Structure formats: structure tokens, C-alpha cells
């Protein structure tokens, strides 16, 4: 069953198109990573799903209903980011109790255990927490709410590495016990690789790729070697990334559609064939130039 459906969804802020006619569906109980460069519309997309903002055109259905201003969407979803706003008059413990009254699936025992594990003081206030602590507290609320649709928009902002790892692990463990549809946007794809099932890659306001992460890991290959032996293999193919190494050697990334025979032939020619990490590939795919930041420094 698909829980989120978008058809030619567009969103514009003051005539600037952020999302441009995107279409995709997200199946129930999948963990999807929403990946893309800064300002590509990840947050906008997630906020439309949560019913915070209105689509400009096109159609979006969350749990078969339009999410904007929809109580049904609101009770079945939670949107977690570092901007989550809590009343300053309430202590952290009281905030958890408030969340319990609102979210029907809320697990207070679980929330308290996470709360204790991350050393929160029940008598503290949300607005006195540091950046990383704020994100951690919000993440606790997001996991313990057990909403059928759980949306994390860059949940790890400010968290240190240990907490980030704990967060991903807690999320995965709780997901296994209580499967739900989870969307995470983050810039730490390499940390999330084991968590994600699908990747939704946004570029220029469009869905560039929407494939399982296992496919993404094999989606491209890197060819490294003397330029003269590497470059012929890229003819007629789209080069995702190209980088000069030293004087003659070069490294290119192309889509992995070479046959076994071709790969063997390439190896004979002295080309080193390497897999491309999913996180690197995402950077190459979403980049507008072939050489990355190095392009800025050459041919000046």
C-alpha cells in the first residue's frame, strides 16, 4: 500500500519554483532517505507532506488524504526538525506528558528510557538546551510518538557523532519492533546507509532518482588509470564525475552499464575499476559540474 503519493507536485515561493512537478510514491513501512543539496526543496517537500505548507499545484495524498490543514494527517504523522517549537513555560518532563496526550501511539516508558539514557534533566526547559541537545530531545519525541508517518528533517543537526550513531540505532531498533513509514532528510548519507531502504534523490526541484539503496550502491562505477586508456570507455556515456590525478592519470565515474566482457577488457587495458560509495555518488549526481570544487581553481 502506498502511503504517500505525489503527482506533478509543484511549490513556488514568490514565483521562485522550489519543487517542479515531481511525482513519486512511497510505500508503507519503508525508510526513505530524502537526499539533495542545500536549497533543493527537501524541507519544502517534507513540510507539504506534514500539512504545514500548501502545494502550489499538482496533487499530494498522504494516507489517501490531502495533508494541508488535515487533522487526520496531523494525528498520524510527526515532523521533527531543529525548529520544533515548544512552549517555554513547560519543563521537558511536562513536554513529554503533553506529547503523550496528543499522540495515540506514544510510548511513555520508551520515551523515559531514552530521556534517561541521554541524560536529560526533567526539570530543564527546552529553550535552554544547546543545539545538539535540542535535536536529541526532538528526536526522542519523534521516535516515541510512533506515528505511522514519521518525518525527520535533518534530525542530527548539532549532534555529536556518538549521539548520531545512537539515534540511528534507536530509530532502527524501534522501527523493527514497530514498523512505520519513515522519511529522513540528512546530509550524512554514509552514516544512514545501513538504515535506509530507499533513496529519493532531489535535484533542481525534480526527483532525480528514487531507487533502493542497494541499487544505488551499484548504480555507478569508478574507472581509474591512464587518461588514454580510461577515456575511450566514457565515449557516448554520461560522465558523472571526472578528476585529474597527477599528470596523466584520471578518475571518472560513469553509470554501471558495462557488460562483464567490457569490464574484463577495461581491466586488461590497465583501468582500475572501483565501486562508488552511495554518498559520493549522490554528491556527483547532484553536482552541476563534473569536477566539483576543483573546477573553480583550474583554467583561471
Amino acid at each position, binding site marked *: 500500500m502506498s502511503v504517500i503519493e505525489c503527482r506533478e507536485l509543484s511549490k513556488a515561493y514568490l514565483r521562485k519554483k522550489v519543487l517542479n512537478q515531481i511525482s513519486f510514491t512511497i510505500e508503507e*513501512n519503508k525508510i526513505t532517505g530524502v537526499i539533495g543539496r542545500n536549497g533543493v526543496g527537501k524541507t519544502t517537500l517534507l513540510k507539504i507532506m506534514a500539512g504545514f505548507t500548501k502545494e502550489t499545484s499538482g496533487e499530494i495524498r498522504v494516507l489517501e488524504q490531502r495533508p494541508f490543514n488535515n*487533522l487526520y494527517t496531523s*494525528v*498520524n504523522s510527526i515532523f521533527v526538525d531543529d525548529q520544533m517549537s515548544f512552549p517555554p513555560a*513547560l519543563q521537558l518532563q511536562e513536554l513529554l506528558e503533553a506529547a503523550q496526550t496528543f499522540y495515540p501511539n506514544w510510548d511513555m516508558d520508551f520515551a523515559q528510557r531514552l530521556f534517561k539514557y541521554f541524560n536529560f534533566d526533567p526539570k530543564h526547559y527546552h529553550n535552554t538546551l544547546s543545539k545538539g541537545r535540542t535535536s536529541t530531545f526532538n528526536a526522542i519525541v519523534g521516535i516515541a510518538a510512533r506515528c505511522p508517518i514519521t518525518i525527520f528533517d535533518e534530525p542530527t543537526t548539532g549532534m555529536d557523532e556518538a549521539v548520531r550513531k545512537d539515534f540511528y540505532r534507536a530509530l532502527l531498533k524501534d522501527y523493527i519492533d514497530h*514498523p512505520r513509514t519513515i522519511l529522513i532528510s540528512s546530509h550524512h548519507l554514509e552514516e544512514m546507509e545501513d538504515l535506509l531502504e530507499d533513496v529519493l534523490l532531489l535535484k533542481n526541484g525534480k526527483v532525480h532518482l528514487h531507487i533502493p539503496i542497494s541499487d544505488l550502491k551499484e548504480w555507478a562505477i569508478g574507472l581509474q588509470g591512464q587518461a588514454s586508456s580510461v577515456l575511450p570507455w566514457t565515449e557516448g556515456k554520461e560522465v558523472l564525475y571526472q578528476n585529474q590525478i597527477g599528470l596523466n592519470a584520471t578518475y571518472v565515474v560513469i553509470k554501471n552499464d558495462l557488460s562483464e566482457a567490457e569490464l574484463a577488457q577495461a581491466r586488461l587495458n590497465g583501468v582500475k575499476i572501483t565501486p562508488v560509495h552511495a554518498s559520493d555518488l549522490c554528491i556527483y549526481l547532484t553536482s552541476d559540474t563534473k569536477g566539483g570544487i576543483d573546477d573553480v581553481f583550474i583554467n583561471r
Partner: protein
Amino acid sequence: MSLSTANLMETVKKQYSFKLKANIDAISSLVGIQLVAILFSLGGIGGSLSSSEGLQINFNYYSADVVLVFTMFWALVTAITITTKPYRNHDFTFVTNRLSSSLSNILFLLTGSLLGAVTANLSRYLLQLIAFLFRDQQVYSGPFDFPVFILGIVMSALYIFCVCSIGYLIGALVQVNKSFVLLVPVLIIGSIFLGESILVQLFQFYVMEPNFVFFLIKILITTALFFLASISILNRMEVRR
């Protein structure tokens, strides 16, 4: 994971009790502003009468009018405040839609209005008590009539609640377009200078109404209209952009 159904009234109830706790600062500022008003009223409104026979009577009139006016001012400010972004965002952290958010706000304002009306009306007796204890004066008080006392509370609550609805509408307009921050004061002050008769007419229409039932109808309809307008404005607003 099992899906939950949402009921508007249930959600409003939850939000209302959440807001009573979350907006406790508003209630404490009500207490504070009323204390200040009592302080201002302590002097009373003074006067003296003298006759040709050399008899002079000095009197001070102690009333809670200033407290009521201050409470109305509190109502205006509080109503505007809870339409601002942070307050709306608090709702959207949890379960809400725009209608339930506004309805629970209105319930909260109604609670504040009732509370403010009760304390403002009671403060008259506090003033008289203070005058009796600390001033070397004879204190005369009108007879205490319970129905009149209750009527006083109801009417003050309605006035305060009506002011709330005006504040809520102003707040909603400002959320749509920031230029209303300037426009609204300009309109109000402008109407004082240009058409004095408008304000006088408004005052006569609402305050000078001798028939309680008519007063009730007038003020309730006005309040309801203001709130309806605000709800329909806020219903289209995007949050957390």
C-alpha cells in the same frame, strides 16, 4: 502501524488544557497588571464639596474601573500575542489543524476573560478594604447584591472577551501582512481625529445599551463575527515556513 482517527472536539479539548499550562505566563501577567491597576486606583477619584456655611466635605471615590480597563488592555495584548508565529508553531509540534488551533485559543481567551472579570470585580472590595484599613476615612459601600455582582462579572467578561476578539483579528491580519502593524493603529488614531462621531456612536451602541438582552445580543454577535473572520483568515495560513 495502526492508523488513528482524529476528532475535532477531542483535539480542541486536549489543546485547551495544553494551552492552560503552556500559556501560564499570560495568566501571571494578568495578575501583575491588575495589581498595578489596583495601585493606581488606591488614590481613588477625589473630590470635595463646600457650602456657604463653611462646611467642607472631602470624598474619595474608589472603583475598580481602572482595573477593568487594564484587564481589557491585557486581553488585547494577549489575544494578539497568541496569534504570533511561535504560539501557532507550538500547536503544530503536536496534533492540530488550523481550526482546532483557533478554537482552543478562543477557549483559552474566554477562560482568561472570565478570570479577569472575576478578579477585576473582586478588586473593588479589595480597594475598599485597603481604604478602610489604611486611610483615616469613613468608608461607605453600596449594598452588596449578589445578582448584581454576578451580572457585573458577566458583563465585564463579555467586554473583555469582545476585546479579545478584536485583538485576535488584529493579530490574524498582521500574520497575513505585516503592513497591518502600521495600518491598524493609523486607522484607529485616524478615526479619533477625523470622525469623532464614529467612536461616540460605537460607545453609545455598545456601552450605553440599557437593555441587558440587547446588550448581550450585540456584544455576542460582534465577538462571534470578529472570531469567525480571524478563523477564516488563519485557516489559510502556512506554518513554519
